[in-house]
C-alpha cells in the first residue's frame, strides 16, 4: 500500500459492504441509516460554512455598488483594478516549476532509495525523514540572509528554489514508496534483454509509475500553491506577490470590501479543488503520511 487514496478506500469499503450485505440481514445493515444521514448532513453543513461563505460573499455586490442580488461584479473589478491576475500568474509559474523540478529530481533519487538498500542509502533515507520534520522557519532565516547577498530576495526564482527545497525530502520518500510496489522482476527482464540500468528505469519503472508521479506532483503542487511563510519572508513588492501573500495584503488594506477579498479567495481555491476533483484517486494524505504505511 503506497498511497492511501480515496478511491482505494472507497472501493475497499464498498467491496466489504457488499460482501457483508450478502451475508448479513439487510434490515440490520440499514437500521438507523436515516438517523446517520441526518447526523452526517448536520456535521457536513457546519464544516462547510467557512467555504460556502467565501463563495457566497464573492457573488455579493461590493461596497458602494448599485448592484443587488447575485453579481459577478467583484470578478470584473478584480480583473480590471487589482493585481490579482498578476499574483495568479506568479503563483502558477512558481508552483508549476516547483512541481516539475521536484518530480524530476525525486523520481531517480526515490528509485535508488527503493532498490539500493545498503547502509549509505538507509542513512540518506533517515536523513530525509528527519529533514521533513524540521520547521521551515529554521531553513528560511539562513536562506534569507544567503539570498539577500545573491539578489534572490523579492524574486520569484528565489521563492521557487526554496519551494523545491521544502518539497524535496517528502517527494523522494513518496517516489520510493511507490517504486517499492513495482516488482524488480520487470527490470531484471529488461536487463537480461540488454537494457542499461538507466534504460530500465526510464522504459520500465517510470512508465509504470504514473500514479506515484501524480501523487508526488499533487503533494508538491499543494505545498507550493498554499505556502504562506516562504512567500511572506522572501517577497516584498506587489508585482512579485504570489496569491497567498497577495490576498493577505489586499485583505489588510481593504478589510471592509469582503466581496472583492472573497473573489480573490475563490480564484485561489479553484486550482487545488479542481486538481482534487479530477485526480482525487491519486491524492495522498499529508504526503508522507500515505508513504509511511508502506515502508
Amino acid at each position, binding site marked *: 500500500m503506497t498511497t*492511501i487514496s*480515496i478511491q*482505494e*478506500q472507497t472501493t475497499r*469499503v464498498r467491496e466489504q459492504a457488499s*460482501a457483508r450485505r450478502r*451475508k448479513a440481514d439487510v434490515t440490520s*445493515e440499514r437500521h438507523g441509516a436515516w438517523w446517520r444521514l441526518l447526523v452526517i448532513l448536520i456535521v*457536513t453543513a457546519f*464544516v462547510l460554512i467557512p*467555504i460556502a*461563505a467565501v463563495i457566497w*460573499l464573492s457573488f455579493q455586490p461590493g461596497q458602494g455598488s448599485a448592484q443587488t442580488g447575485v453579481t459577478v461584479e467583484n470578478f470584473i473589478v478584480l480583473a480590471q483594478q487589482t493585481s490579482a491576475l498578476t499574483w495568479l500568474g506568479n503563483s502558477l509559474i512558481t508552483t508549476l516549476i516547483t512541481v516539475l523540478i521536484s518530480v*524530476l529530481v525525486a523520481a*531517480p533519487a526515490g528509485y*535508488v532509495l527503493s532498490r539500493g*538498500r*545498503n*547502509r549509505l542509502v538507509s542513512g540518506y533515507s*533517515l536523513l530525509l*525523514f*528527519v*529533514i*521533513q*520534520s*524540521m*520547521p*521551515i*522557519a*529554521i*531553513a*528560511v*532565516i*539562513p*536562506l534569507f*540572509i*544567503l539570498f*539577500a547577498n545573491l539578489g534572490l530576495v523579492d524574486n520569484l526564482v528565489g521563492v521557487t528554489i*526554496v519551494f523545491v*527545497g521544502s518539497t*524535496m525530502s517528502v517527494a523522494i520518500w513518496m517516489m520510493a514508496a511507490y517504486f517499492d510496489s513495482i516488482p*524488480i522482476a520487470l*527490470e*531484471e527482464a529488461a*536487463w*537480461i534483454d540488454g537494457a542499461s*540500468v538507466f534504460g530500465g*528505469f526510464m522504459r520500465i519503472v517510470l512508465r509504470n509509475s504514473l500514479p506515484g508521479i501524480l501523487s508526488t506532483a499533487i503533494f508538491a503542487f499543494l505545498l507550493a500553491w498554499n505556502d*504562506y*511563510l516562504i512567500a511572506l*519572508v522572501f517577497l516584498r513588492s506587489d508585482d512579485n506577490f504570489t496569491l497567498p501573500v497577495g*490576498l493577505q495584503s489586499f485583505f489588510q488594506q481593504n478589510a471592509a470590501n469582503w466581496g472583492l477579498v472573497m473573489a480573490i*479567495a475563490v480564484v485561489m481555491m479553484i486550482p*487545488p479543488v479542481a486538481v*482534487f476533483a479530477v485526480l482525487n484517486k491519486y491524492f495522498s*494524505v*499529508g504526503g508522507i*503520511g500515505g508513504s*509511511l*504505511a508502506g515502508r
Partner: protein
Amino acid sequence: MSSASVSDGLARARQGRNPAGRGPVRTPRNRPRNRQLVWTLVFFIAPSLILVALLNLYPVAYALLQSFQNGSLIAAGDFIGLNNYISVLTDPVFWRAAAFTLTFTIVGVFGSWSVGLALSLLLRTWIPGRNVFRVLLLLPWIVPTVVSATSWNWLVATPQSPVPVIFHALGLGEPLFLADPFLAQVTVCVFKVWISFPFMMMMMGAALASVDVNVYEAAKVDGAGPWQTFRLITMPLVRRSTFISWILMTIFCVNDFPTIFLLTQGGPANATQSLVVMAYRTVFADFRVGPGTAIAFLLTVVLVIVSVVLYRQIRKSGVE
C-alpha cells in the same frame, strides 16, 4: 552474462549485502558493468543530494552558527557563546510560547483525531450518498489556509461578525473571539482542528478499511456491545495507524505557522504566540537574528528527536 551480474548486484543490494558480491569492497574496480551500475545510481541520487545539502542542511548548520552570534539580517556578528540561549530561556515570553505550542499541539492532535475517527467510523456504515460526504468533508484540508483563515476572520473577528451576532442573539454575550486572550486561544485551536480532521479521517478510514468485517460479526455473535467492540477490536487493529498519525500531526502542529499567524499574528498580548511564530517575529519584526535562530534551533532538536522515535517505531513494526 554481464547483464545478469547487474541484476545480481541489485538483488544483493536490496538485501543489504555488498552489490559486488563477496568481500568488504564497496566499489568494484575491475567489473565494467558494476561500475556502470554504481555510476548510474550516483548520477540518479546526486541532484537530490546537492539540493538537500544546499537547501536543507546548509541552513540548519548556518542557523546553529547564527544562534551563537549577535549578527543581523545583513551583517555577520561576533561569537557570543551561549548568550542567545540564556536570554531566550530566561525570557518568560519564550515559556509562554512553549506552553501555548504544547496546548495547540495537544488539542490539534487529539481534537482532529477524535473527530476524524468518529467520522470515519460513521462513514463505514451504510448511509445514502456516503461517498459524496466523504469527498465534501475533505475540503478543509484542500482549501488553502490563507483562504479559510480569511473566511474565519469574516465569521468571528469583530462584534458585527456573524458568529458573535448569533451568540448575542442567543443571550451568550458578545464574545470577542480574537481579542480576548483565552477565546483567541480557543478559536485558533478550533480552527486547527477544522483544518486537520480530514487528514485523520483519511488515515483512520484507510486503517479501518483494511480490518476484516468478519471480526465484527464474530464479536456480535459473542454478544459484545458497541463500546466493547470499539475498545477491544477496533482500537487494537488501528493502533499502528493511530500512532503514526499522532506523531505526524504533532510535527504538523508544532511547525504550523499560517494557521496561527493569519488569525491572530500571535496576539492578543502574545496569548496565541507559538514558538514558530515567536521565532519568525523575533527575526523578521524585531531583527534579533541570534535569539530567533536559537528558538528555531531548540524547536528543531525536539522535532528531530520526535521524528527519530517515529522512524524507529515504523522500522520495528514494519518487520512484524
